[in-house]
């Protein structure tokens, strides 16, 4: 299997021109194997419902997990991401249609979505909720042991985001930013109404690597999306998926999975009102 597509440019130099399309299938197969192995090895542990009544005191029944803006971001990101993946890869695997214009416009929408997200994170949310600290690493270790069935291991409760979600976020962020930055540059090679063509802005080899990075990030996102969708529909995670739709989680799920010291929900009264309003 080859990793790169290469060609001889007009000056006889051997330059990369893109990533090998065989890697699409590699990503799909690795994704499928990951899903099957995970589904077989990790039991679907749906909540025990055991919560500490002291901790529950004063908390409303519904707690807001995602503000409308955060949910809007998530679904806009997923719509544009699916549009990008479909327009990029379906034509390569033989389902052909005019893809380039839809692709770059979806790309521009994705960029707007990401800009909104960055603004939202800094202005409205707590940036540090996604940060991985020492407690997350400990949580990860214990969680892994518990998932692999170690008798005495129990996964500690997480902050707002469990460590595996944080890791997913960071990897997806790198892949998305890689595709975004290279995608914006690639728009100088195609006809678009935002800016004029600058085909020779970089050397052939540099352009080649830009295409390679775009392809690698895109193919990486195939795997990440498969894994993400799989976790979203696993029975023990569905409450989290629902919260991305309706915004709230119930108190028991909160206390069962989150450490109130690490994720402090705002004032109970305001919280309940907001959750009702969503």
């Amino acid at each position: 299997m080859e990793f790169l597509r290469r060609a001889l440019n007009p000056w006889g130099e051997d330059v990369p021109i893109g990533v090998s399309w065989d890697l699409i299938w590699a990503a799909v197969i690795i994704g499928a194997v990951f899903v099957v192995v995970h589904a077989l090895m990790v039991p679907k542990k749906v909540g025990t419902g055991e919560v500490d009544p002291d901790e529950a005191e004063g908390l409303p029944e519904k707690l807001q997990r995602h503000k409308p803006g955060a949910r809007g971001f998530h679904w806009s990101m997923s719509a544009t991401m699916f549009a990008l993946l479909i327009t990029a890869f379906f034509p390569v695997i033989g389902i052909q249609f005019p893809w380039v214009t839809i692709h770059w416009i979806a790309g521009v929408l994705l960029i707007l979505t990401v800009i909104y997200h960055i603004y939202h994170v800094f202005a409205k949310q707590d940036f540090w909720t996604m940060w991985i600290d020492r407690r997350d690493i400990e949580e990860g270790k214990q969680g892994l042991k518990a998932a692999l069935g170690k008798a005495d291991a129990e996964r500690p409760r997480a902050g707002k985001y469990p460590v595996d979600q944080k890791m997913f976020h960071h990897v997806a962020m790198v892949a998305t930013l890689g595709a975004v930055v290279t995608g914006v540059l690639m728009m100088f090679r195609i006809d678009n109404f935002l800016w004029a063509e600058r085909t020779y802005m970089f050397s052939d080899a540099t352009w080649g690597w830009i295409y390679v990075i775009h392809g690698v990030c895109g193919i990486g996102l195939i795997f990440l999306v498969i894994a993400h969708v799989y976790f979203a529909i696993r029975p023990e995670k569905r409450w989290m998926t629902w919260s991305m739709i309706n915004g709230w989680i119930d108190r028991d799920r909160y206390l069962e999975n989150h450490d109130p010291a690490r994720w402090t929900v705002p004032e109970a009264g305001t919280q309940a009102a907001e959750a009702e309003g969503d």
Partner: protein
Amino acid sequence: MAVIRDMIPPFELYQPAGVDDAVRLMDEHGSDGWVLAGGLDTFDWFKDRIKRPAAVIDLGGVDEIRGITGAADGGLDIGAMTSLTDVAEHADVQGRYPLLADAAGLVATPQIRNQGTLGGNIVQDTRCWYYRSGWPCYRAGGNICYAATRRSMNREHCIVGADRCVAVNPSDTAPALVALDAEMVVVSTSGERTYPAADFFIGPDIDIERMTVLEPGDLLTRVVLPAPWEGARWYFEKIRDRKSWDFSLVSVASTLSVQGGVIQDARIVVNSIAPYPVRMGAVEAAIRGREPSDETGHMAGEIAVEDARALRHNDYKIALTRNLVRRSIRDAA
């Protein structure tokens, strides 16, 4: 064009005697195989050593797809291996489809028409010289169009239908076949398929590396012309740099059904302005119910170029298209 080196890289030559054998061989070799008809496009590629297939399937002995016969519904059935001369000089083609006879008769030179086939003329690749020089452009699987930049030599390139690639379809018979509502019969190991000529050609938006729907393993066997329209009028004109022989800069093929002095139906097709022959649907709709006058032609010419966008060196094609469409309505006979 690249320097032609006389030695062609080696390949396995297969000479099937029938369509079944040919498609079996094509299926066996997939994208490593190459169909050889008259060889006029083929040998350019081979001598320039740009295309290096492992196997060449020569259709020279496949007689069942050579020749012209009457089709069931009063039309004509033309085998893909029929030479362009035979198409241009056939009595039925001249008598009932003078549009096609004109188009085939204007291809290149007598020698090339003797050797070149209708199938090869339809399926031939674009003449974009960057691509023909073996440069790794989009059409060759790369990530650049050398012809679309502000500094490119793009006088012969397209004014509509571009999608990263701005090459044009060079065939003279293709627009005539679209204007005649021809059907293309394609055979592969999975059976026979038929395409209306207008759907047979595809643009780079769908697949930047192909000009037709044919995929490896697909053989164009026949072109079927339906019975011509009652009282049809025709027009074919090809504009080229020199009168002796040359590819078209713009060509137009039209068929008009005129009754009571009014256009009932029309097919207006322009080639060499896009990566595929362009059927001008908006023009056809606009001229229905009108007289085939200069005024109608003038209006049609304006509509024809509404979506056109010139590259650095080919804005003359806009004026040419406008005028050819106008003439193809006014002067159709």
